[in-house]
């Protein structure tokens, strides 16, 4: 019973998250300006981090947690760097 509940809810959640990543990629490809693409990238790494967490629940191992933490750290730094680049034209001045 609980196995079926877990299996179906995790499958539907992963389907939703993959669809969300598809929306982000569409915004990255279509985005009329550079800041739209950066925004799509920002949402994309959040969705990837959540997808890794659902894989962790599915397999029952805490290994995926470290990967999700690293993704959120690096994604924040890259978004900051890209926003800085859009404003100033260079990252480190």
């Amino acid at each position: 019973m609980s196995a079926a509940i877990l299996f179906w809810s995790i499958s539907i959640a992963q389907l939703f998250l993959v669809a969300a990543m598809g929306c982000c990629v569409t915004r990255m490809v279509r985005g009329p300006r550079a800041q739209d693409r950066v925004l799509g990238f920002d949402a994309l790494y959040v969705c990837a981090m959540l997808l890794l967490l659902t894989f962790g629940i599915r397999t029952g191992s805490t290994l995926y947690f470290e990967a999700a933490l690293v993704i959120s750290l690096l994604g924040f730094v890259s978004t900051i760097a890209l926003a800085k680049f859009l404003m100033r034209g260079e990252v480190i001045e």
Partner: protein
Amino acid sequence: MTHATDIPVWAALLIGFFLLIGSGLTLLGTIGMLRFGSFYERVHAPTLGTTWGTGGILLASIICFTVLQSRPVVHELLIAIFITVTTPVSLMLLARSALYRDRTENAEAVPPFEAVTPAAGVKPEIR
């Protein structure tokens, strides 16, 4: 899914509920990001995924591992704190840079440089 038989039904129901809430809100946020008209509307939408989207899935993960290991497992709080702190910073910086780019191009939808409080004595393009 061999570990799933160790989880009682009430915990499985809670995990499924929070998983569906989190992933559904994330999907809604990205659909909003896809469908809104201008950048300044779009920048609001993905925060749905970084607040309750992340919160729901992290709560499901906390419940799952707490029940599995029979002890409080709260290391997911690290991700929650980190996402809560960093999302406003990155999105505000992105919106400021978009505003700066629109102003330098004299776009009509945004106020020009002179409209921003000349009495303050600071240059408006300062971050």
